[in-house]
């Protein structure tokens, strides 16, 4: 009756992911959250007028609002993910099972990531429908070369937004392991939001003004901030290619590296924190 060998890592991860999906995503509260978010994104896109102009104008309309909305979505879904298990004593119980800290962090992250990906993809995909229906002039060229509006450019924007959201979720999960009370979780979540939205960008601006970053390194230093890295990637790969040549606004490679380091580094911090 009793198992003689512990389950493999795949089984452990799958089990933890399913529980996250079951308890955090397949819930009425998440459906309401997704509906409201979709309405907000559709409303922003419609009121900005970009929908009538085409895909790339829609990207321009959505970029700034999403820079605020995506951190909110990621932190709302992630900042209590592990903290609540700790508060209920479930982390103590899980320590008596053959579950390593990394199983828990990665499992929780993947489970919540499904919710975050849906929260980004559903509204942004739905925005494509009115653009296709009302966009003027109708896009005739489905390619990504300069000067052409294209749904592919919009899809690049969508993919980059998913990447940005996944990085922020990793940061939120790390915050969730670092805090010790619900009150500090809320405070830490808010503080993280402020730092991500304003602090790092202001830091880069001060660094540039103070001469710490030279003109040539500025486009690379933007990768230090997840928000700037995301914005730079959208500009370079979804907007600039359609609007023609101009000064480079960011280094796509540095931005991808910066976002990857933020994401993987956060998951590493979360794992190390749970191991203590």
């Amino acid at each position, binding site marked *: *009756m*009793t198992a003689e060998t512990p389950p493999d890592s795949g089984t452990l991860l799958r089990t933890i992911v399913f*529980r996250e999906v079951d308890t955090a995503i397949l819930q009425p509260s998440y459906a309401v959250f997704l509906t409201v978010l979709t309405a907000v994104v559709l409303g922003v896109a419609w009121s900005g007028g970009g929908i009538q102009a085409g895909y790339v104008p829609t990207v321009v309309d959505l970029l700034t609002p999403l820079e605020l909305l995506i951190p909110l979505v990621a932190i709302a879904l992630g900042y209590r993910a592990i903290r609540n298990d700790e508060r*209920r004593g479930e982390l*103590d119980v899980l320590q008596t099972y053959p579950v390593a800290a990394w199983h828990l962090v990665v499992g929780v992250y993947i489970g919540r990531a499904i919710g975050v990906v849906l929260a980004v993809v559903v509204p942004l995909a739905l925005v494509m429908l009115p653009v296709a229906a009302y966009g003027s002039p109708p896009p005739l060229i489905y390619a990504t070369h300069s000067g052409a509006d294209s749904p592919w450019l919009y899809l690049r924007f969508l993919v980059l937004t998913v990447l940005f959201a996944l990085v922020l979720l990793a940061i939120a999960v790390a915050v969730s392991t670092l805090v010790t009370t619900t009150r500090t979780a809320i405070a830490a979540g808010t503080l993280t939001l402020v730092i991500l939205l304003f602090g790092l960008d202001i830091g880069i601006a001060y660094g540039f003004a103070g001469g710490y970053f030279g003109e040539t390194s500025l486009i690379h230093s933007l990768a230090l901030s997840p928000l700037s890295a995301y914005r730079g990637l959208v500009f370079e790969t979804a907007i600039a290619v359609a609007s023609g040549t101009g000064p480079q606004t960011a280094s796509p490679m540095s931005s991808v590296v910066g976002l990857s380091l933020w994401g993987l580094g956060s998951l590493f911090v979360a794992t190390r924190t749970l191991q203590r």
Partner: protein
Amino acid sequence: MTDAERAVLELSDVDRSYGKVSVLEGVSLTLRAGSVTALIGPNGSGKTTLIRTLAGLDDPTEGTVDYCGPESVRQIGYLPQQPAFRPGQSVSDTLAFYATLAGESESEALARLERVGLADAADRDVDALSGGMTRLVGIAQATIGSPPVVVLDEPASGLDPAMCVHIFDVVEQLAANGTAVFLSSHDLALVERTADRVVLLDAGDIIHDGTPDALCDERGTSSLLEAFEESIAAEAGTVQVQGEAT
């Protein structure tokens, strides 16, 4: 020594401090298969710290905790003092989750629920359970994977007398099946009835480790409650806070 009496967990000279506050000092203890060991002591005496150290949740500052039981996917089962589960799942889903982590099937998890007498609540949401039911689900969880050692932190705390008796009956069954059960409790009548051994902890020290009858004989009392009152250092109605001047 029979198989049922073999040592499965040994604590040797365990100290546990939080900063400058020493909570456990030189605690040595051996848990044996097929027996119920009850940890009793006044509030603040270090019971939960000892339980957490024994369950492997906190490392001792000094000394060692050695598991010496049979090979097992899960060596120690644990019930926290205030068990709680992820809201949004049924009892059976919750136990199936833990069972999968220990390599068991959902049907095996449900069999454990049946053993604690809660099979009828399998489909109920965990956040709709009473305190007693939650503890029973917690005990079923603690037995998943058939760990040779099961540690229960105040399993009967705050429950009505009938539920307390039921929980101690479940504990007796576990020990009868060869499990070493270690529990803390303030219900000394049930401890006296159920426990094979009583460990009396006072101010971080074990001041008695033996049968309930031996403790009563030692103190010249007729009940465990009287023996407890005779034994503890703190005055009745006060909590001895460790690390503070008394």
